[in-house]
C-alpha cells in the first residue's frame, strides 16, 4: 500500500481515479463468465416458463401457496415489473394474495439462479445465511402484509 508521511503520521494515499477505475473494471471483468451464465439462465427461464405454467404449481391452500410462491419467486429472475404483471395475472387466476406477495418479494430479494455468482463474490457462508434469512423473511412479510391489508376496509 502506498503511504506518505505528514506531521509524523502515516497517511494512506487514495489511488488515482484512473487506477481505481481500472481496478473496478478488472474486478467486474473477472466475473463476466459468471454474469453471462446467469443472464443465459434467466433467458432460458423467461422463454420456457409461461404464466399459466406458473399458476399450475399453486395448490389452493394459502399457507402452502405462500411457500410455493416464495420458492417459485426465488427460482425466477428478471425485471421486477415482470413480477408485478405476473402477480396481477396470478391474482386474476384466483391465486391467494399471500402467495402472490411472496412470489413478488422473492423475485427481487432471492435468486437461486444467481447463487453461484453470489457465493463466488461474497463467500458460501454469507450467501447461505443471507438467503435462508431472506427466504423465511419473505414468507413472514407476505403473510403479515396480507393480514394487515385485510384489516383495512
Amino acid at each position, binding site marked *: 500500500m502506498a503511504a506518505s508521511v505528514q506531521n509524523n503520521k502515516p497517511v494512506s494515499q487514495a489511488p488515482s481515479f484512473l487506477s481505481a477505475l481500472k481496478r473496478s473494471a478488472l474486478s467486474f471483468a473477472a466475473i463476466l463468465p459468471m454474469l453471462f451464465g446467469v443472464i443465459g439462465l434467466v433467458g432460458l427461464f423467461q422463454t420456457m416458463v409461461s404464466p399459466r405454467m406458473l399458476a399450475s404449481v399453486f395448490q389452493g391452500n394459502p399457507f402452502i401457496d405462500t411457500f410455493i410462491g416464495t420458492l417459485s419467486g426465488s427460482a425466477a429472475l428478471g425485471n421486477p415489473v415482470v413480477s408485478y404483471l405476473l402477480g396481477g395475472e396470478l391474482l386474476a387466476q384466483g391465486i391467494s394474495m399471500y402467495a402472490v406477495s411472496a412470489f413478488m418479494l422473492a423475485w427481487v430479494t432471492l435468486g437461486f439462479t444467481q447463487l453461484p455468482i453470489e457465493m463466488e463474490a461474497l463467500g458460501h457462508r454469507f450467501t447461505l445465511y*443471507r438467503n435462508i434469512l431472506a427466504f423465511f423473511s419473505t414468507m413472514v412479510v407476505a403473510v*403479515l402484509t396480507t393480514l394487515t391489508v385485510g384489516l383495512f376496509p
Partner: protein
Amino acid sequence: MSTAPFRWRGLKFFAIITATYALAYVYDQHTALAALQTSGTILHKVLPIIAIVIGATAIINRMVQPRKIIRHLGKESGAKGWVIALSAGVISHGPMYLWYPMIEDLRQHGVRDALLVAFFYSRAIKLPLLPLMIDYFGWAFTAILTIYILIAAVIQGWILEKVWR
C-alpha cells in the same frame, strides 16, 4: 489497495449454461434461439447499469478512504449505518448480481455483514415502480409491504450478527 492477480471467475458455471443451450438447441432449435435472444436483450439492458456500478466502485475507491467507510458502515456505525444501508438498497437499480463486485469491495474495506444483508433486502423496494405497484395492488398493500420490508431488512441483519457470534 490490494492487487490480487486477475482470474476469470465462474468458468465452470458458464460452461454448464453453454452446454445447456447446446442441448436445448439439439432438442428444440426455436426455443433455444428465443432464449438466446432474450438473454441478448437482458444483456443490452444491463450494460448501462454495469457502467454505473464500475464508475461507482471507482469513485468509492478514489474518494472514500477505508477508515471513513469503517466509521460510517463498520462495527461502530450504529443507527447511521442502518439508515445508509437501507437508503442505498432502496435507491440502487438493476439486478442484484451486478452489485456483487462492489459489495465484495466494500466488505473487504470493513463494512458490517449485517448492513449488507439489510442492503440486499431493502432492494425489494423499487422507488420508480411504486406507482405501478399502487396501480396494481393499491395504496394500502404498497405502503404496508414497504414498511414490513424495511423492518425485515433490519431484523435479518440483526439476526445474522447474533448467529455470526
